[in-house]
């Protein structure tokens, strides 16, 4: 039944642009497809890399946005046509895998740096590492073009379809998100995933069973780096380039907000959270005041943390239990 539900959800998401087109004027349908749903999916992928680590490893890493940025910068550095040209020469078919590879390596490195820490220490250290990378990127002109960043990463054209078309972008992003989501769900049932969950619950016992805890932890960060890298490549193409602001403190915290609002109990929470975040971001002007978006999203975040630490998913579960009890009482 759960599988049926998942397939139905995927089909609905696939058909959504056409549905939007049927109910909204053409320009609004395009905006919703690209700038709300597409963007929510892109950041959902990045947030899912955090949720994956938090749900199955118990690691709340604040380095995921930075790792996504590493993929974006690698893409922008190598791809032909980016302005300014840093290395250039590579087509998208080469530069995109290079970006994802760079992010995976960065994920492994962050995992190795934080390997002996847990909980809030891990949170502090991953934040410090990502802010270090941010400040390095911001001040280095030679490789990252400093404060301005690298522009004009327009994306490839697939089978004659231009990536800048919101429908193409949406469907590529949706495909990537579904593949990564399915991959995560498969991975956590594999022996590797089970060991990872064992480490979350009791690292000592797992270690006593003969598993190398440190290696499994680093590998989990590598997997999360790969996921974040895919998101980072898409985000860079979405933004037509990358600048240090993309991986600054604000952006780092935003990814955490998405993951927490959605709920750290299941990877699907990341996508829920990023959709809620994106909708608020887009319509803050109508709800409260365009310039005070941070206050608005901060309040939403605070209410969620105070009232339902397991996010929107937790609210749903609580409601179901409440309704179940009502039904049982009758």
């Amino acid at each position, binding site marked *: 039944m759960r599988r049926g539900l998942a397939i139905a959800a995927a089909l609905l998401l696939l058909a959504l642009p056409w549905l939007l087109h049927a109910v909204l004027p053409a320009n609004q349908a395009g905006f919703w497809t690209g700038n709300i749903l597409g963007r929510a999916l892109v950041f959902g992928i990045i947030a899912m890399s955090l949720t994956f680590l938090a749900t199955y490893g118990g690691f709340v890493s604040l380095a995921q946005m930075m790792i996504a940025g590493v993929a974006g910068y690698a893409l922008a550095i190598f791809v032909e046509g980016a302005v300014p040209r840093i290395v250039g020469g590579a087509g998208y078919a080469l530069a995109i895998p290079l970006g994802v590879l760079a992010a995976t390596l960065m994920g492994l490195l962050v995992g190795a*740096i934080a390997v*002996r820490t847990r909980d809030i220490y891990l949170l*502090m250290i991953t934040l*410090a590492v990502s802010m270090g990378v941010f400040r390095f990127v911001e001040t280095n002109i*030679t490789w990252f073009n400093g404060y301005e960043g690298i522009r004009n990463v327009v994306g490839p054209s697939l089978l004659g379809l231009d990536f800048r078309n919101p429908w193409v972008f949406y469907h590529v992003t949706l495909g990537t998100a579904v593949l990564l989501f399915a991959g995560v769900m498969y991975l956590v049932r594999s022996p590797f995933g089970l060991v990872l969950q064992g480490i979350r619950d009791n690292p000592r016992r797992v270690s006593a069973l003969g598993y190398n805890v440190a290696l499994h932890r680093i590998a989990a960060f590598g997997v999360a780096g790969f996921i974040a890298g895919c998101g980072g490549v898409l985000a860079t193409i979405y933004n037509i380039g990358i600048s240090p602001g993309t991986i600054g403190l604000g952006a780092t*915290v935003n990814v*955490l907000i998405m993951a927490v609002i959605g709920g750290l109990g299941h990877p699907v929470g990341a996508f829920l959270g990023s959709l809620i975040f994106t909708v608020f971001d887009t319509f803050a002007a109508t709800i409260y005041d365009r310039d005070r978006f941070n206050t608005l999203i*901060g309040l939403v975040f605070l209410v969620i943390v105070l009232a339902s630490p397991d996010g929107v998913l937790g609210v749903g579960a609580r409601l179901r239990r409440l309704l179940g009890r009502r039904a049982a009482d009758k």
Partner: protein
Amino acid sequence: MGANDRMELAATIVLNGLTLAALYFIVASGFSLIFGLMRVVNMAHGTLYLVAGYVGYAVFEPLYDQDLWWAWYAGLAAGVLAAAVFGALLQQVLLGWMQGQELRQALVTIGISIIAADQILAIYGGNPRQFFAPDAIFGSTQVPLVGGYPTFRLVQIGVAVAVGVGLWLLLNRTRLGMMIRAGVDDREMLGACGVNVPLVGVAVFALGAALCGLGGVIGSTAQPLAMGQDGRFLLISLVVVIVGGMGSVTGTAVGAILVGLAEQLGQAMFPTYSVVLTFVMMVAVLALRPQGILGRA
């Protein structure tokens, strides 16, 4: 460049590093104190810096316009008080009742820091501002080897030393300090001995926040106060306590000196890569001593 000039340059860099370290120590000691007793990673620590700076400036500016000599001191007092009240409220209203849920507390303080920074921007606008130090500690002083050096920066070092000594005396020589140290080791037992642990918690939070506020006003006298400083000083507090060791005053001092010197040396020797030096140092410490240089295992 002659040997004399090189000597002078080296001495200036070291002195710059130490004055920076002094500011970092004042700010980070509050972070370390709160973490040491409460196990709270106060992600709103940088926000306290902003609160103290902006509230202090709001008091300072009209007085300064009237040429009153005590304008700066009034601003300092107002800023420190504002930060202390903010910190005490944070602990009393939001964090106290979720004691032990460390991650949730960190998330709550992140939420507060986002809202507070945005509201400060809404109230005070985005223009940078800077305190003017009173005449008594303004101007320059002759320092051997270095020559003329801004007096205020030397005062900064003096304040940091006073804070360090004061904290050490407070923790090791007073009744409150005894309670704090006992609380670090065993909160339940301290409560069972009849100490009002939540009240000690609020006091520690207020004290830690006040130290950050002190850093906020002093820092905003030495360099402009602007949005974004909250992130900068949160990050510096994190790095300083990670390097020096969590919850130890001496460790925080060592961490601050290392970070301050590394930053100045790096900027003088290889400007575009200076940031890397600080973080290589942090990673090296984590690899060799995950609890920090003077942290307890």
